[in-house]
């Protein structure tokens, strides 16, 4: 009965989003016919994947790779051995699937996920791009419509990939060779179904797009978040996913988010991912991001610290007290980063609150006696 209701929900979802790709799925373990029109594409993406394997910013931590690869396998079933995950250390929100089965996942995406269900919906989306062979279809369409430059662009991008961040941003969903809106709708619909069929809470699919739209709106310049750049209008996408989630919600009562497991897996990397996010120099977006993460997990000292840093770097009117409040919240959590003391000191020093600055810098030196910037902090203390 539950399966029937699920099928009905899926049928409703498909009716909302239009037909899926008509092309047959490739068999598990599929490799391109090297005498056909796919040969050139595969040669290029194989070359790109070879470059990915030795790229300096590929995350090679066995536990994290096993977790993400395991989730892909759980979602992709018999295609598990066909799909290979590469985790790329770059703070942009993005993921991409290559036509040969390589899937790239940015650490900026992993930072933004609050639970396994959210990651499952994104991975389901990418798995669909592979299963429905969107890149190949796109290439064929480009050839048929005379957009030869697009094909050459893909080949050039693939051949030139030396750094994994470049690979994600050009091969998967970049400006040179992007998936069409219909393909994105298809990946949304089928990705939703893939993750939902494994019991992941359907509300987490629109949740991903809701927070991405919020971050996108906070961007200071015209460029869009890469993952959204070639996707249908964000509001349309959000509304469609929300409708699908609404219809699916009542079909079972044991939906899972696996938030605790996801948090456990991500925690060892959070500090580095947060520093990378802050280093982007986009504090308006970072404020939106850390407001969300710290609100969802207020006991997480690193999210609170990230929020404090984002406010300090944004430096708009009223940001100083908000930064100090966030740093103080971080210090009230278990295992707070000593850098929260430094943050309070910097904000207080700029605000002219010399006693608070002096106390905070002194506390930072006490909690991090070997900090790399201790000479600078000692210099600040001589100025207070």
């Amino acid at each position, binding site marked *: 009965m539950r399966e029937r209701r699920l099928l009905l929900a899926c049928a409703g979802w498909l009716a909302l989003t239009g037909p899926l790709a008509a092309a047959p799925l490739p068999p598990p373990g599929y490799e391109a016919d090297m005498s056909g029109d796919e040969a050139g594409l595969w040669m290029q993406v194989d070359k790109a994947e070879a470059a990915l394997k030795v790229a300096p*910013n590929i995350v090679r931590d066995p536990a994290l790779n096993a977790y993400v690869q395991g989730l892909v396998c759980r979602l992709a079933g018999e295609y598990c051995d066909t799909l290979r995950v590469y985790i790329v250390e770059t703070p942009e929100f993005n993921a991409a699937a290559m036509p040969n089965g390589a899937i790239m996942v940015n650490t900026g995406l992993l930072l933004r996920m609050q639970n396994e269900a959210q990651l499952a919906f994104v991975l389901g989306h990418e798995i669909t791009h592979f299963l429905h062979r969107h890149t190949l279809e796109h290439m064929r369409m480009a050839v048929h419509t005379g957009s030869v430059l697009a094909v050459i662009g893909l080949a050039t991008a693939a051949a030139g990939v030396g750094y994994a961040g*470049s690979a994600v941003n050009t091969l998967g969903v970049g400006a040179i060779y992007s998936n069409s809106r219909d393909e994105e709708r298809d990946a949304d619909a089928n990705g939703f179904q893939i993750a939902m069929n494994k019991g992941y809470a359907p509300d987490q699919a629109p949740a991903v797009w809701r927070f991405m739209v919020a971050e996108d709106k906070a961007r200071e310049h015209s460029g869009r978040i890469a993952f959204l750049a070639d996707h249908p209008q964000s509001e349309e996408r959000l509304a469609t996913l929300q409708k699908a989630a609404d219809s699916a919600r009542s079909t079972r009562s044991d939906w899972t988010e696996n938030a605790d497991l996801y948090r456990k897996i991500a925690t060892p990397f959070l500090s580095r991912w947060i*520093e990378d996010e802050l*280093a982007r*120099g986009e504090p308006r977006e970072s404020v939106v991001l850390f407001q969300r993460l710290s609100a969802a997990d207020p006991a997480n000292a690193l999210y609170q610290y990230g929020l404090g840093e984002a406010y300090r*770097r944004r430096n708009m009117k009223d940001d100083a007290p908000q930064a100090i409040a966030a740093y103080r919240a971080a210090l009230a959590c278990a295992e707070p980063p000593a850098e929260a003391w*430094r943050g309070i000191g910097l904000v207080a020093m*700029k605000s002219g609150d010399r006693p608070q600055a002096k106390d905070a810098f002194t506390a930072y030196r006490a909690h991090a006696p070997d900090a*790399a910037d201790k000479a*600078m902090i000692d210099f600040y203390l001589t100025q207070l």
Partner: protein
Amino acid sequence: MMRPIRLLVLLLGAALAGCTAVTLVEPGKPAAVGDGVNVMPQVRWNQIAPRKGQTVWTQNGPAIDSVYFLTGIADGKPLYSVAGMRDADVGIFRANMLPNDVQDLVVGTMQKEGYDNVRAGSLAPCPFGAATGFCFDLDFATKDGLLMKGKVLAITRNNTLNVFEFRAPSEYYFAALVPTVDKIFASVEGK
């Protein structure tokens, strides 16, 4: 109709006009790098056509190593412009910035310039001529995956910022050039 040979000459002229002029900076003589600041090079450097507020020296070509002298940066201005971005979006200097803020600004500007995984560390006070400035180290990567290192010396005074930044590949070039760059940074005089 223009004759082909004339067209070719015109095109060559236009191409040459777009080339970057390079001059030599001789060792042992004070060299002006902007904002009234002089430095003393120990070896001969190639100087790429200086612009107002921006002088670039290199030993092996700017694609490999470079020393940027970014001088006289006023409140509300970026360290330098980035193609395709408004200055406000690149990140701007504020006169009340602390050294930590300037470090964040350098990192964010480099990210927007197109470098990846830019990380700064070892922020410390450092002599800037007779004054006290600050310095820090950089690790980053080019879009092509070349791992790079950098070293920055900076100072804020009279509400303007001067940033001297050395960048080179972490393999061989950085270690080979950093001793002579250190001497340049230690030789700051003026203003």
